[in-house]
Structure formats: structure tokens, C-alpha cells
């Protein structure tokens, strides 16, 4: 590769921004072009469901890097442009403005899109008060409806749904959350955590209905706005606005159409390479093998997007760096700082440390003696120590974990020499 080579990064989100600037830092000598569908410079997505809805953060403070930072790194931004197709044989991209862009190396950081509400069919799909929350545009569209006294129905009791509920209650809306599983956060946490969050929301006035699927949306006389959300049991809940947070679909269509290996995520190796030697991928759109958990994963996590983007950048710079990701996530609702590390699937025991009654506690997920994952609420030292323990596949002593007077470092049995 030399000064005349072109690296194109498709996707201007967390991974794309880090990849483009990281590639320059890793020594990419030629042109770097960052293409994004959205008309904005890369921005932080997590605040969209928190500070942005609470009205705290204006768009400029959301930027991951300033425009100058990309200039300095020699990254050319092409915003508001979609890639229609990748021609791998000709090494050319077909863009939505009708032009063709050749590449020498390609990086896919296409992320994902909000899963559409299945019952939003026909006219309901275009209802002006039906919202998703993935982009800045979504927030701009939501804000005029997000007013005190309005009746909000949130479909989905996952992190997005609960964060929106928290923001809404604090803005004075009336809030109902509908979750199809028997408890909120069912797929990702233990019952003790679900109970805690249901209680926290209910004491602040959020109405939560679990075990409740949405069957249909009623429209008003204009046919342009949802007037009620109909549950599977027939109850119709009046609504002024609906926000659906029911998951993310990875944007893998471009890769798939181009013949890359895709399986609920673009398949990448530990160096972030796809099955095309000229193409790397990073972020929410990828699936990779986790050595830590012995299975393939697709992670929706900002830290993961950044770490994988750095690996991809190193690969583009000719460095053979690999990385086995440690999944970790955070969610802020009210004054509750939830920080999670690891994946708890397969656990056979949950050990509590601290006091849910004080809103400061941790839940440790064990499989045998191995620590798989930890959820912490307002217990940052536990979280930071947990990262090391989970990454190290530590075998732990459950009694010591449960005893908050014993430091976590002492909960790890001394390995036999």
C-alpha cells in the first residue's frame, strides 16, 4: 500500500470513526474515505436515550470527534451518502449519488438498525407518533411529542425501553412499558435484577406490564397517528406516542449481497478480517468467535465496537494484533448506574453482594466455580474488579463473593501450584 492507495470505511458510527482515524495512526499511507448514511459527523449514540431525551445535550456536544480531528487525520468525510453495492471483483463501490468509488481496502462498520414493530403494518408503519431510537434523526422526530402529560407507551423492556421510560418519567410524561417476557431485562439479567428495576421504575410511576405482547396498533381518525396500543389479551392502552425498543438488526445486507460470509453478523476472525482478504469489519455488524465463551457472538456494545475497530485498524496498518473481546455494557436509568461485564448465559448460580435495598449491589453469575458475568448497580469498584476476574476466567468462592466485607481479590481461590 502506498500514498495512492484508498481505504474506504463504510459506516460513520462509533466503529467507523475509530477505524478511520485508527487506520491513519496505524500507518495507512494513502487516502481514507469515511462514508456515512446519516448527515451527521460520527456522534455518541448512548446519550440518545438518556441526556438527549432529558434535554441535556445539544447535538454538537455529541460528536465523537470534531471535524478538525478528521482533517488532522486526513480522513475525508462523505456524509448523507449510502453505499448501494460492493463489487468485490472490480473493487468498486456503487454510491447512492450515482457515482462509483474504487477501493484498495474496505472496512465495513455498518452497525445496525432498530427492529421494526411486527404489528406496525400498512398505514400504522408510517404513523407519525410511532418512534424508534437509534439515530439523532429519531430523537429529533421524537422530541416534539416528548412532552409532559403525554401518554407514552414503550414497547420493549430492555435497556433502551427502560432508559426511555426513565427519561420520560423525569420529563413528566405518563409511561407504560410493555414487555413480552415474564420480566424486564429477561434475556440479559437474573430475576433479582429484573425485580430491582421493575421496582425502581414502578415507585417512580412507570406502569410496567410484563408477559404482555403487542398485537395491534389502533390509528386515530386521520389514520396518521397511533391512538392506542392493543395487547395480546385484548387490552387497549391509549397512547399519544409509542416508542419501540425491541432489538437491533445488523446491517449485513451489503456484505451478503457482495458474497461475504454472513450469519447474523458479518463473520470476522480475531484480526477483524472477513473472508475477503481486502475487507475488514468491526462493531455491531460483526459476528466473531469468542475464546472466552467458546462460541460465536455478535455484541451490541460501544466498548466492543471501539476495540474491534482498533484491531481492524491495526490489521490495515499491517500489524498482526488480535483481541479476544471482554463484553461489557452500561445503562443509566435515574441515578442508578448499571455496569455489566460478561455474558451470563449458562449460569447455574447467582450470588448477591451488597444491598438492593440501598440501590448498591452486584449480582455474580457463576457456572460451577467459574465467574461468567457480573451486573453491578452503583458499585463501581466491584465492576472494575469484576472485569479482571471475568477476563481471567477466575474460579471464585461464592461465600466470599456474598460477603461485602471481604475484598473481591480475596474471593478468588488460590490456584494450586
Amino acid at each position, binding site marked *: 500500500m502506498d500514498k495512492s492507495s484508498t481505504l474506504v470505511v463504510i459506516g460513520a458510527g462509533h466503529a467507523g470513526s475509530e477505524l478511520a*482515524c485508527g487506520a491513519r*495512526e496505524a500507518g495507512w499511507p494513502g487516502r481514507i474515505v469515511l462514508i456515512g448514511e446519516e448527515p451527521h459527523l460520527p456522534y*455518541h449514540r*448512548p*446519550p440518545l436515550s438518556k441526556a438527549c431525551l432529558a434535554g441535556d445535550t445539544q447535538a454538537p456536544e455529541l460528536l*465523537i*470527534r*470534531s471535524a*478538525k*480531528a478528521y482533517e*488532522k*487525520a486526513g480522513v475525508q468525510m462523505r456524509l448523507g451518502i449510502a453505499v448501494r453495492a460492493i463489487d468485490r471483483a472490480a473493487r468498486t463501490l456503487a454510491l447512492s449519488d450515482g457515482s462509483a468509488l474504487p477501493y484498495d481496502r474496505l472496512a465495513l462498520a455498518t452497525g445496525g438498525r432498530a427492529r421494526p414493530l411486527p404489528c406496525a403494518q400498512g398505514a400504522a408503519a408510517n404513523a407519525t407518533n410511532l418512534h424508534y431510537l437509534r439515530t439523532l434523526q429519531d430523537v429529533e422526530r421524537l422530541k416534539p411529542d416528548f412532552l409532559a402529560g403525554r401518554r407514552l407507551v414503550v414497547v420493549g423492556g430492555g435497556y433502551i425501553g427502560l432508559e426511555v421510560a426513565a427519561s420520560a418519567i423525569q420529563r413528566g410524561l405518563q409511561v407504560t412499558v410493555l414487555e413480552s417476557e415474564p420480566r424486564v431485562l429477561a434475556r440479559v439479567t437474573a430475576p433479582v435484577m429484573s425485580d430491582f428495576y421493575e421496582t425502581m421504575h414502578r415507585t417512580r410511576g412507570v406502569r410496567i406490564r410484563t408477559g404482555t405482547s403487542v398485537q395491534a396498533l389502533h390509528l386515530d381518525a386521520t389514520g396518521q397517528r397511533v391512538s392506542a396500543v392493543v395487547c395480546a389479551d385484548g387490552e387497549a392502552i391509549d397512547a399519544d406516542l409509542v416508542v419501540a425498543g425491541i432489538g437491533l438488526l445488523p446491517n449485513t445486507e451489503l456484505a451478503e449481497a457482495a458474497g461475504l460470509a454472513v450469519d447474523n453478523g458479518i463473520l470476522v476472525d480475531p484480526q477483524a478480517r472477513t473472508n475477503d482478504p481486502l475487507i475488514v469489519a468491526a462493531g455491531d455488524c460483526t459476528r466473531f468467535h469468542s475464546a472466552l465463551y467458546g462460541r460465536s457472538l455478535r455484541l451490541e456494545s*460501544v*466498548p466492543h465496537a*471501539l476495540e474491534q475497530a482498533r484491531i481492524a485498524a491495526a490489521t490495515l496498518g499491517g500489524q498482526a494484533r488480535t483481541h479476544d473481546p471482554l463484553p461489557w455494557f*452500561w445503562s*443509566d436509568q435515574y441515578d442508578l*448506574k448499571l*455496569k455489566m461485564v460478561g455474558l451470563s448465559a449458562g449460569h447455574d448460580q447467582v450470588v448477591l453482594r451488597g444491598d438492593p435495598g440501598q440501590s448498591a449491589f452486584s449480582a455474580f453469575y457463576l457456572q460451577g466455580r467459574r465467574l461468567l458475568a457480573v451486573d453491578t448497580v452503583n458499585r*463501581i*469498584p466491584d465492576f*472494575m*474488579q469484576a472485569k479482571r476476574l471475568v477476563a481471567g476466567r477466575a474460579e471464585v468462592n461464592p461465600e466470599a463473593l456474598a460477603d461485602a466485607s471481604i475484598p473481591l481479590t480475596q474471593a478468588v481461590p488460590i490456584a494450586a501450584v
Partner: protein
Amino acid sequence: MTTLTFIEHNGTRHEVPARSGDSVMQTAINAGIKGILADCGGTCSCATCHGYVDAAWKDRVPAPAANEQDMLQCVLEPRESSRLTCQIKVTPELNGLVIHLPESQI
């Protein structure tokens, strides 16, 4: 105008213009300074924006809040002067602030 100085672990100095209201972390990121990550976007959730406040500025930077204090216990190579730079807001009073960067954030 406010200027901040970042000194990398290898001694390289960077003098960077800073906007009031931005965090010290964001100032470094925007200037492309190597040695500060910002994985959580400045929400005090990741401890990858760790820096050491120069001794001359020890008492001139507002003290850390409880959240940050908790996170600081867990940075790589903590010192008395350790701060999470995403939690320090640039003000005219901090003109000339010197931050030393650790060898690694992760």
C-alpha cells in the same frame, strides 16, 4: 484563549487550544493526542481517559466527585495526581494546565 499541555509518556509535549465547557478528554481527542482513549464517551464509565495532573496544578483543579473517585481506584498505575480527564471541564482558570499521560490506558 485557553491552552492545555499534554505530555505523552515518552515525553512528547502537545500544546492544544481548548474551548471552555469541553472536557479535558474531549480536547485531547479532538487534537488527536495519542494516549487518551475515551471509550464511554465521557460518562465516567470506562477509566480510559486517565491522566496525571501536573504537581503545579494540584490544588487548582476542582476535586473529583464520588463516581470518579470510585473509578480512579481501578485505573492502570494510579497515583495521587490521577484524574479521569472526561470529568475535568475546561475553564479560563485552567489556562496552562499540564496533564501527563500514562503509558497505557488498557
